[in-house]
């Protein structure tokens, strides 16, 4: 049962010496053995490393050297570089890639004494919304094994929801932390662009990618943010802003707080039960003292999907040019021609969705189309950001559904890219604007989770954590566990 603990609960027991990190780590490893055959959330389990890290954590704790994450088991999305441990991006291209260094976020967790128990499955190179685009296997949603967990950080969300770890890290380019958090009924945050260093995060779309936590409650989210946020001179887009103690704002006081509900996020095709759950949840926030404006308009929202699916693939097509079969990764060797080797390396190393996006991005950037697609998208990006800036002059935070639907069936959208892309319609404007967003559990429909998203102003993580925490404390959703 120890694996069900939150970070702050486990920390209390570790500090009081009622539980050791080795015991806690073994509980998670046991749980992994029990549920992994059904869920397939992990690409690899790092048992040996975990036990040795847990032993070291116990030694630190014995000396009284204990921080909030010391001795706490974590799962890392397999897009985060881990020194000496395979980092595959769930791609055949990197199936055997062993990074020579740690990502900054990983290094920070290691310094805190966190214990890595495994690496999480994902859509290949983080491109997807269901974790079905993993080159290895799809991951199953613990609330209904026939359904997707969302994506691309599906493995990270499932590992937390199914208690295979105490918390996890994911990455979010268009909703890849928040949408699976919503689908699996856990907490997931995408910080402001520039808040968490991207050093060692395998690049997908560099102007949109951010690393963030997936946790069992909002307090844990704040604790992980305390550990991973902050300036890093190895990432030139890391912002030298001071990092607050994110737990300080969790005081439950919503009196006078102004919340806006942008009507464009209640899109056509939204499931009525999702809409109802959201309206009930927002009503609850009013009861808790927040002043809610139900009629906010962000008119550029319907353009965000097109902007995203031009900008993200364009950046991806440039970022993924590095996979040439020469320096690392899969390499096609059965030819003497350099160009053929390169083309075949990429033909056999990349999966279908990755190829689709490389083609899309290359097209949008190519001579004759650059102005009509890429430059146009960048201009509309400015309009989207301006609307957020305007809204935040009036409201402290915005509240929306995380996704228009509950988790869909495995296979349901696999052959229809446009339908798949639409499942991120509520999350991707946030990446385009570079502002922070958090998804928290907000109910169920026929046993399937529904997520609520709060959006904050740039570097306004504290406000959305505060609102999320107040709602969580007034409800029971975050305590519910799937029967697997």
């Amino acid at each position, binding site marked *: 049962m120890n694996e069900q603990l939150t970070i702050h609960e486990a920390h209390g027991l570790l500090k009081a010496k009622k539980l050791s990190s080795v015991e806690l780590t073994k509980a998670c490893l046991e749980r992994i053995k029990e549920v992994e055959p059904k869920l397939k959330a992990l690409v690899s389990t790092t048992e040996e490393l975990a036990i040795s890290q847990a032993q070291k954590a116990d030694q630190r704790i014995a000396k009284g050297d204990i921080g909030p994450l010391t001795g706490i088991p974590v799962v890392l999305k397999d897009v985060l570089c881990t020194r000496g441990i395979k980092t595959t991006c769930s791609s055949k291209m990197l199936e055997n890639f062993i990074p020579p260094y740690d990502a900054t976020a990983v290094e920070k967790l290691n310094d805190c004494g966190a214990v890595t128990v495994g690496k999480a499955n994902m859509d290949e190179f983080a491109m997807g919304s269901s974790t079905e685009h993993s080159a290895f296997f799809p991951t199953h949603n613990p609330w209904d094994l026939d359904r997707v967990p969302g994506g691309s950080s599906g493995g990270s969300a499932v590992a937390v929801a199914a208690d295979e770890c105490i918390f996890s890290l994911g990455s979010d380019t268009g909703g890849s932390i928040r949408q699976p958090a919503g689908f699996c009924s856990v907490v997931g945050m995408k910080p402001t662009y520039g808040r968490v260093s991207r050093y060692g995060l395998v690049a997908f779309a560099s102007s949109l990618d951010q690393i963030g936590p997936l946790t069992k409650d909002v307090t844990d989210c704040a604790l992980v943010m305390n550990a991973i946020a902050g300036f890093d001179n190895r990432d030139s887009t890391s912002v030298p802003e001071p990092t607050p103690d994110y737990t300080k704002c969790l005081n439950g006081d919503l009196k006078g707080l102004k919340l806006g509900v942008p009507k464009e996020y209640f899109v056509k095709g939204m499931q009525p039960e999702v809409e109802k759950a959201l309206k009930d949840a927002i009503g609850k926030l009013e009861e808790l003292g927040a002043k809610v404006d139900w009629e906010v308009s962000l008119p550029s929202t319907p353009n965000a999907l097109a902007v995203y699916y*031009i900008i993200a693939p364009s950046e991806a097509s440039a970022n993924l040019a590095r996979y040439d079969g020469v320096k690392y990764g899969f390499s096609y060797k059965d030819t003497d*021609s350099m*160009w053929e080797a390169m083309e075949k390396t990429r033909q056999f190393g990349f999966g279908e969705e990755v190829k689709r996006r490389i083609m899309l991005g290359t097209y949008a950037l190519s001579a004759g189309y650059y102005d009509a697609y890429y430059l146009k998208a960048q201009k509309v990006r400015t309009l989207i950001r301006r609307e957020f800036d305007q809204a935040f002059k009036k409201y402290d935070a915005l509240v929306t559904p995380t996704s228009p639907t509950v988790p869909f069936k495995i296979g349901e959208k696999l052959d229809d890219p446009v339908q798949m892309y639409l499942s991120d319609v509520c999350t991707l404007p946030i990446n385009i604007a570079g502002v922070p967003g958090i998804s928290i559990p907000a109910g169920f429909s026929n046993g399937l989770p529904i997520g609520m998203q709060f959006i904050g102003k740039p570097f306004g993580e504290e406000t959305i954590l505060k609102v999320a925490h107040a709602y969580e404390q007034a409800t029971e959703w975050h305590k519910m566990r799937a029967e697997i």
Partner: protein
Amino acid sequence: MLHIARLARLGLTEEDVDRLREQLSNILENFEILQQVDTTDVPPTAQSIPLQNVTKDDQTKPSLPQEQILANAPRKDGEYFRVKAVLE
């Protein structure tokens, strides 16, 4: 299609080309919506933070050892990456 695939150095089968042609034109149709947006005098946004010209102090420090850099190389020759002949 083949021109774009060549620009991306992406080998595609005939089946790939057929499938992608249909899917991409579908996706591109959904982008038409942007042509109706008035962006007169709107500057483009390449990234969302106000940083410009980020530089680092010029400090010397050891780089990663050669053997670590070569550890993942598909083909190597001593202390070099081995590549196919560029000039034929």
